[in-house]
Structures are given as C-alpha cells and as structure tokens.
C-alpha cells in the first residue's frame, strides 16, 4: 500500500508543472552572433530546440528531453545525481566555442576547483553510453598522463575522474586506456612508433568512444626563448607553435574521420609563466595566441571537438592577491615547476567534465551544488557554402581535369593532381565576395579528396592548406610578431620531416596519418587571420574574416615536404572539390529600386530617375551591353562599357524621386540602379522568370 502511494505521488509530480527546486539544471540556447560562447545583449534566443538530460538520479535512471521555449530557455529538475546535458544541434547550426571569458575570483560563487563553469557537450556520448560498453582513451603529453609524481595525486587522476562520472551517469563500466606519454611533442601523435603509447594510430586501432587530448606544451617548452631570447629565438619558437598547429590539425582531422564513434575533448594550454605574477614577456605574449589556435583547431573540424577551457580558468588565478593564486596550482618541486599539483589537476578535471556537458548535483558534486543555472549554449548558423571559381597550377604540377575541383555537383569527378619534388602545387580561388548581407563570424575551409594510382604517398607527401592572401609562407628572413604570424591555415598534413629545418625531430616520419585515402574523405579547418592588439588593450582581438579577405583566399594542394627526389608520378591526389563555409548571420537585403526611367538631356547625357528607397545610404548605377542580356548574361560589373558608378551623385527629381546623370555609353546599353541600406546592396533586378540578375556583377561593395 505504501509503495502504491509513493508511485502515485511520483506520477503527480511528473505531470504537474515543476516549481523551481534546488535540483535544477537550466540555461538558454542562443544565436551567438559574435561566436564567443557568451550570451550578449541582443543575441536572439533559439526556441524549439531539443535539449536532452540523461543520467542517474538517486531514484533511478533519468532520460528527459525538453524543447527550448521561445526565449531559448530550458530547465530540468532531476534531483541529486550525475547527468549529461546534450542540446540537439539544429540543422545548419554549429555550437559556438566554449566561453573563455575571465571573471575575477571575487565574483560570488567563484570557488576552487570549479571557478567559472564552461559548458560544452559530448556528441554521441549518450548513445555510446547506452550501447553498454564505453572506452575512454587518454591521449597526449604529461598533462594527459596527469604527471604529478612529485606533488601528490596519482597518474591519470582527472581522466579517472571523468571515467567515474561517466560511469555514474550510465551505470556502464567505462574502461580507460592509460597510455598517454610524458614529455612528448605534437608530432609524436603522427608517428606509429609501436611503443604501446597512445598516438593517433593507437586510437584508430582501439576505436574508443571518447578521446581526451592534451598536447602542445612540450613543443613550446623545448624552444622557449625565455625573456632573454633574441628575435631569432622567438622566430624559432613561433615556427614550432605553427608546426604544432599543423600536427594537431592532421591528428585531429584523422581522429575525426578514422575514429567515427569517438567524441574528442581537447585541452587548452595553461601556463604558469604567462601569469601576471610571472611576467615572462614571451609567454604573456604568445600563450593567449596558442590558446586561440587550439580553440580554432577544435572548432573547425568536420565533426565537432569540445575544447576544454583549462587556460581560461587557470588564468583566473593570476588575479589572486599577492600573486599566490596561480603558483598554488603548480607543482613547485625542484624537479618540476611545470605540472599542476592536485589543486591544479582538480581544475582540469572540472573543466573536462563541463566540456562533456556533465552536471553532478547534490552529493555527487564536488562542491555539493544543488543547481546549475546559466548552462547556456551558443550556436552559429552556417549561412552559405562558397565554392571556388578559378584554378591554377604552379611550378610544374600536373593536373588532369582541374575544373572538376570547382564543382561539388559533378558526382564526385575529381581533379587529378600529380606533384613531384619542390614547390609544385594546385590552387583553387575566386570565392564569391558579393554576399554582403552575410555577417561573417567564422569561416571553415574544407576539402573532399582521395588518392589514387599505383604508387604510395611515401615519396609523394602532400599538404592541403588555405590562406587569405597569395602568400602561404612568410618570406625568407621574416620576423614573427604577435600580430603577424598567421600566413596559412593547415587542413591536411602534419609535421614529421617538415618540422622547422632547425628542429627535425623525425626526419623519416610520415606527415600523413592516412597517406593513401581510397575513399573520399572530407577534412576542414577554421580559416583564420592575424589577431590585432589595440593600443592599451590587455587582450587580443580576433577579427572575423571579411568579404574582402575571401576575395583573395586560396586553397592549395602542395608537395610537402620538399623532397630531394621526385615522387612517384603514378600517385595522384584527387580533389573532388574545396569549399568555404561561412558561419554567422544575415542582414535583411533591401528591396529592389523601383521605377527606373531614363531620359535624354539635350546635351547628350542621360538622366536616370528612380524611386528613393527608405534608409538608403548610397545609390549605384550600372551600365551593361544590351547584347549580353539576350543570352542570359550580364556585363554591367567588371566588364561594363561605362561605370559602374558606385555611390553616384543623386539629385532630387520630384516627390520621392531621385536622379543620376551620366554620359551615354557607346552602343546599346541597359541600366540598373541599386541602393545600399545598412551596407547591404539591393538586388539589381530580376529576369522575367523572377530569377535575380547575376549578383557577381554587383561590384559596388
């Protein structure tokens, strides 16, 4: 009888609107229009998006899905327990980055080891846990191994913590591969050394469901110029950072494609030398850049990788009084001075749990918290995919059917690229620039490719890269600076023998995890450019790419490294196509300018009058050859017989009317007027079938 009463009571609770209780998980999904992971004023909510909470409460399993309300909000009241929160990505949207904003330690609720919660989610996590077996692998350097022999906690502490919490969520036994390396570099991920340590090849072999990765610190330590370093020392260190970026791009993209069931959690790099209390100029200058590089690496993959904001939360401890905060997180033993101590690793443990979308409530939480508010998720929309319109070969590369690399609708027909020695390459460019209503937040550059031919990649190593200028590498003798280092974005191909020549770690190693790609593979990366540092500012700004940047952007397949001997000519890289995905939002396009009338003035000039457009900032007049229109082509843009007359001078021409005066072009011509409203150009017009006139001709940007 008693049991029956309890069940009825539970049913009642479950069917009634739940009051706010002390066991809530709540937050907001929003259109993250600056991509910073933080809900800013004016950023629209995302309503109607499914959010799932899965886990174990004290009373049993919990698996609930709610839709966000019109204001983007959602909430669960599951009670004490361990849970994963997983928004279901709306079609065409990608989760923006994990918040990396700082907050003073004096902020209420700012407690070790949690600091500021920085949530992401574990894609495929619930599904994999429900499958009944779950394998987690620790990949990377000594931080991945939780090296802390000199200061307390046991190896793999934070991975074991994650393992335990995932087990708590699911009741499933989660296995953990404890085979990260100590003191190793990013190119070690790409070397199949057979030593039994975790690298990309080991991950492909074991096919885990979750991979945690920490890597880049040792790349930097070994070339650390210190404060007494020369510019040459800085150049070497920056070259190593950029080489590590390339290695990690190859490693991450290989993991994404070759371990399809895994979600990856990538740590950002903390650095006690970058704190305000250890004023190492090099570290303070460059470590924030390294953190951004890691965030961009994670964000741009074809399948999302969660960034673990270790850097952002460790940075809070810089702000502790008397400079004791950060150093209290580091093992200051005389044979260490680098690795976190137990307190530091606890922070990493919490950040990695948050990056997995983990929430522990009540007795399960490290701080016995009973509610999580502001578990917010920002999203950025893929607004448009741009395809290149031009191709070229350089330095003798041989390409069969190069035009195919421009077409994503040709049933997989590729451009067959044969690269020999030296600097041979194939480039595609000419990405459309006229979609001025698109407010670009992020850009992803991608390629779809395979390899073919009887040869192998052993002597035909290749790379694929994107750059926003024609210059993919710095000129000889170039001196890197914090605001001038970002010459290219690696997409395919890593370090190994293409290390900076002064530091050839693996002269005989391969640059490609999967050199021979028999089936088409898609790989992508966040396309970035140099940061800026406004005068007096403490932090870098990371400007979004502009449409002007896209005009000069190219993606290339290049021979790499530059071998001493020619490659096997039978080996080909087959590029199906390349693309740029623009993420952001769109302004409303203005309507067409109406009622254009042409009048001939006795002096031979023309008078084009039209209805004024509300809110117009400026007007443009285009003239094209009439003969082109019949064939459905237009030439009023770059090949115009006259003009174009951008931001043309206008005069009043009666109520609600304006006019532009121009000289009459030679021959028969057609004329179009456009207007810019909020810096977005109106359509030039439509065909009789209602199809907009070729936008590429509208060049008054």
């Amino acid at each position, binding site marked *: 009888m008693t049991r029956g009463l309890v069940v009825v009571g539970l049913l009642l609770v479950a069917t009634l609107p739940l009051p706010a209780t002390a066991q809530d998980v709540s937050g907001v999904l929003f259109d993250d229009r600056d991509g910073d992971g933080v809900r800013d004023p004016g950023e629209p909510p995302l309503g109607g998006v499914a959010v799932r909470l899965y886990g174990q409460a004290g009373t049993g399993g919990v698996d609930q899905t709610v839709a966000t309300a019109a204001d983007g909000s959602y909430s669960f009241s599951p009670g004490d327990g361990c849970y994963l929160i997983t928004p279901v990505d709306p079609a065409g949207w990608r989760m923006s980055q994990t918040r990396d904003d700082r907050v003073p330690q004096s902020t209420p609720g700012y407690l070790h080891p949690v600091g500021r919660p920085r949530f992401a989610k574990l894609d495929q996590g619930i599904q994999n846990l429900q499958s009944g077996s779950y394998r987690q692998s620790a990949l990377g350097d000594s931080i991945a191994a939780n090296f802390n022999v000199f200061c307390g906690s046991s190896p793999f502490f934070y991975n074991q913590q994650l393992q335990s919490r995932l087990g708590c969520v699911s009741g499933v036994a989660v296995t953990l591969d404890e085979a990260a390396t100590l003191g190793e570099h990013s190119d070690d991920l790409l070397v199949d050394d057979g030593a039994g340590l975790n690298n990309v090849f080991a991950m492909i072999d074991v096919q885990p469901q979750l991979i945690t990765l920490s890597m880049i610190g040792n790349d930097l*330590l070994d070339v650390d110029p210190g404060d007494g370093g020369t510019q040459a020392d800085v150049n070497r260190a920056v070259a190593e950072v950029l080489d590590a970026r390339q290695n990690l791009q190859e490693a991450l993209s290989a993991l994404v494609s070759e371990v399809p069931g895994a979600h990856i959690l990538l740590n950002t790099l903390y650095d006690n030398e970058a704190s305000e209390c250890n004023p190492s100029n090099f570290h303070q200058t460059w470590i924030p850049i390294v953190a951004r590089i890691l965030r961009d690496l994670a964000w741009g993959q074809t399948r999302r990788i969660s960034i673990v904001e270790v850097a952002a939360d460790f940075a809070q401890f810089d702000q502790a009084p008397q400079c*004791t905060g950060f150093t209290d997180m580091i093992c*200051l033993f*005389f044979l260490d001075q680098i690795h976190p101590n137990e307190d530091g690793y606890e922070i990493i443990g919490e950040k990695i749990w948050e990056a997995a979308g983990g929430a522990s409530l009540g007795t399960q939480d490290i701080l016995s918290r009973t509610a999580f508010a502001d578990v917010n998720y920002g999203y950025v929309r893929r607004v448009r995919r741009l395809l290149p319109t031009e191709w070229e070969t350089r330095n003798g590369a041989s390409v069969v059917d190069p035009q195919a690399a421009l077409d994503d609708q040709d049933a997989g027909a590729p451009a067959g690229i044969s690269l020999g020695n030296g600097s041979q390459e194939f480039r595609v460019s000419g990405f459309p620039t006229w979609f001025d209503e698109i407010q670009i937040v992020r850009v992803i550059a991608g390629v779809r490719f395979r390899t073919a031919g009887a040869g192998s990649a052993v002597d035909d190593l290749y790379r694929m890269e994107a750059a926003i200028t024609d210059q993919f590498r710095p000129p000889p003798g170039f001196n890197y600076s914090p605001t001038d280092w970002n010459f290219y974005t690696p997409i395919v191909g890593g370090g190994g023998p293409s290390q900076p020549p002064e530091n050839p770690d693996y002269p005989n190693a391969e640059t490609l995890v999967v050199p021979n790609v028999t089936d088409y593979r898609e790989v992508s990366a966040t396309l970035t450019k140099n940061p800026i540092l406004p005068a007096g500012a403490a932090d870098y700004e990371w400007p979004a790419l502009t449409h002007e940047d896209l005009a000069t952007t190219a993606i290339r397949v290049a021979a790499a490294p530059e071998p001493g001997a020619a490659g096997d000519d039978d080996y080909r890289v087959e590029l199906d196509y390349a693309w740029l995905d623009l993420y952001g939002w769109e302004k409303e396009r203005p309507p067409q300018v109406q009622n254009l009338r042409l009048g001939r003035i006795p002096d031979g000039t023309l008078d084009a009058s039209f209805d004024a457009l509300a809110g117009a900032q400026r007007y443009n007049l285009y003239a094209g050859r009439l003969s082109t229109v019949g064939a459905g082509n237009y030439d009023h843009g770059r090949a115009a017989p006259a003009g174009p007359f951008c931001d043309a001078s206008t005069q009043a021409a009666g109520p609600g009317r304006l006019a532009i005066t121009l000289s009459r072009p030679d021959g028969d011509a057609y004329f179009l007027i456009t207007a810019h409203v909020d810096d977005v150009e109106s359509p030039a017009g439509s065909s009789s079938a209602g199809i907009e006139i070729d936008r590429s001709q509208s060049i008054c940007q």
Partner: protein
Amino acid sequence: MKDSRIRSILAGALLSVAAVGALQAGPLEGRWLLESQSYGSGKANQAHVAKPLRMEFYRDGETLAGRIWFGGDHADALPWPSLVLAPLRSEEVVISPAEDRVRARYRTVPADGGDVVLEITEEYRVTDGGTTLSGSVTVALLRGGKPAGSYVLERRFRREP
C-alpha cells in the same frame, strides 16, 4: 605556501642511496647555487627564485660527499641525490673529483600495488674555469617496466663563495 610545501616534501624523503667519491681536492668541492633550470633546449628559466636549490660537495672523511637544500639555511640539507615521496633505489652514483663531474642514476620504489617508477639521472660537470656546474636531469617514467616518456631539465649552478 609554496615554501612550506617544499620543506615538507624534503622532510618526507626516504633515502637509500649514498654519494661517494675518492677524496681529492678539485673544483667540484664547494657550494653551488642553481642559477637556471630549463626544459629541453628551451631557455625559459624555471629555477626557483625565492628558495633556490643549493648543492654542496664536501669532504666527508676520505670521500667527497654531496648534499642539497633549498634557500640559504642548510640545516635541512639532505644527502645528494635525494628525492621525495617514495623510497629510492640507487642504480649508480659517481662523484669523480678527478674528472670534475658527478653522475647519479636512481629510481623510485613503487608504492604497494603500483607500477609507476621514476628513473632519474643527474649528470653535472664543472665548466667555465671552475665557476659553473652544468648538466642535465632526465626524468623518465616507467609504467609496468615499460618506458612511458621522459623529459630533460638543463641545469646550471653557479659557484658560491
């Protein structure tokens, strides 16, 4: 806090190694201050500034012995080489006054049921006309008897009066 941590770590050391060296006056003898410590070929100095590591080689009967301590007070000095947290097993300790060099290789003893062992190799040599003791410390991790990575610290000590 960091100073007290270092002190407690040293106080907890369990030593099972001995430093030996045939007595012969030479440039090794004397007190050395750790001036710089960097990872690999990096140049960033990780040496502890507030409580610098000191090492001393001194006559102990017919041999030359070593000891280490932090800061200026050597009351807490421990024989060189010393580590922390776990007993050590010495593999090799050589103090060669005649060659102006010292070398120590030692391992931690794993805790009950544990399979993690550190093998540490310290090698130093007197250079710069007797004013500098420079060398490296290689910290290698063994798990289940298999190498699990390592790192190298480059060190430079300055002779103290």
